């Protein structure tokens, strides 16, 4: 009952979403895992457009690829999982923000 174009595009999007989900759980680098989650949200948003749900697609695009990726990236810095030398990670994970330079930290 469905036209073959919809079949192929849905299959492609499902494969992309599965690959993104598996790599978000199995990759070693935490930054790559967050980027994979963002890719999952993008694929999901496109699939929602295909399923005739534009409102939901807009919400998933804004929230998933915008806000969720933003708060996961902030969590990466705040938890000390990414960003420079180990000492920088330690200091960054305690204070993150736009403080002006008051003391010299360690260089990159």
């Amino acid at each position, binding site marked *: 009952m469905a036209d073959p174009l919809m079949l192929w595009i849905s299959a492609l*999007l499902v494969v992309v979403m599965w690959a993104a989900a598996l790599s*978000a*759980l199995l990759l070693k680098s935490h930054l790559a895992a967050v980027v994979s989650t963002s890719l*999952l949200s993008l694929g999901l948003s496109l699939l929602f457009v295909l399923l005739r749900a534009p409102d939901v697609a807009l919400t998933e695009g804004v929230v998933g690829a915008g806000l969720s990726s933003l708060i996961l990236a902030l969590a990466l810095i705040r938890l000390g999982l990414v960003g420079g030398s180990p000492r920088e990670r330690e200091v960054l994970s305690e204070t993150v923000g736009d403080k002006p330079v008051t003391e010299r930290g360690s260089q990159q």
Partner: protein
Amino acid sequence: MTLAIILYTGAIGLLVIGLAGVVMSSHLFRMLLGLVIAEAGANLLLILAGYRWGGAAPIWQAGQFPTTMVDPVPQAMVLTAIVIGVGVQALAIALLIRHRHYSGTLQRTGGLNQLQADLDREAGVRHTRSSDAPTLNPLTEVEHVH
């Protein structure tokens, strides 16, 4: 029929991958990402319940509503669910930050041991291994007491 199989496999697969990730991951941050994946799968499953063959989007176009529309009620529910999901993720991140501040590590077993040791110390009980752990070979293994 094939479209149903593809889409349902995709949605249920995402849900199960997310749940398996939550249960089986050893790092708390990956547990959070598993939760995100499971939420995406659940939302997709809800939208799939509202699809109609030959339906159009439920929006007023060119002076009339379309004659066959997809069901707008699951879409309204999923709208709510997506925004609640991001609120839950933010709360989980706050808990992770607090947990790391408390125990210094984000590994699942490390934090668990720390919690158990602190609880035993507060209760005044000697911290031992659980009774379900396999028995130690007294010649080669030594029990560590925190």
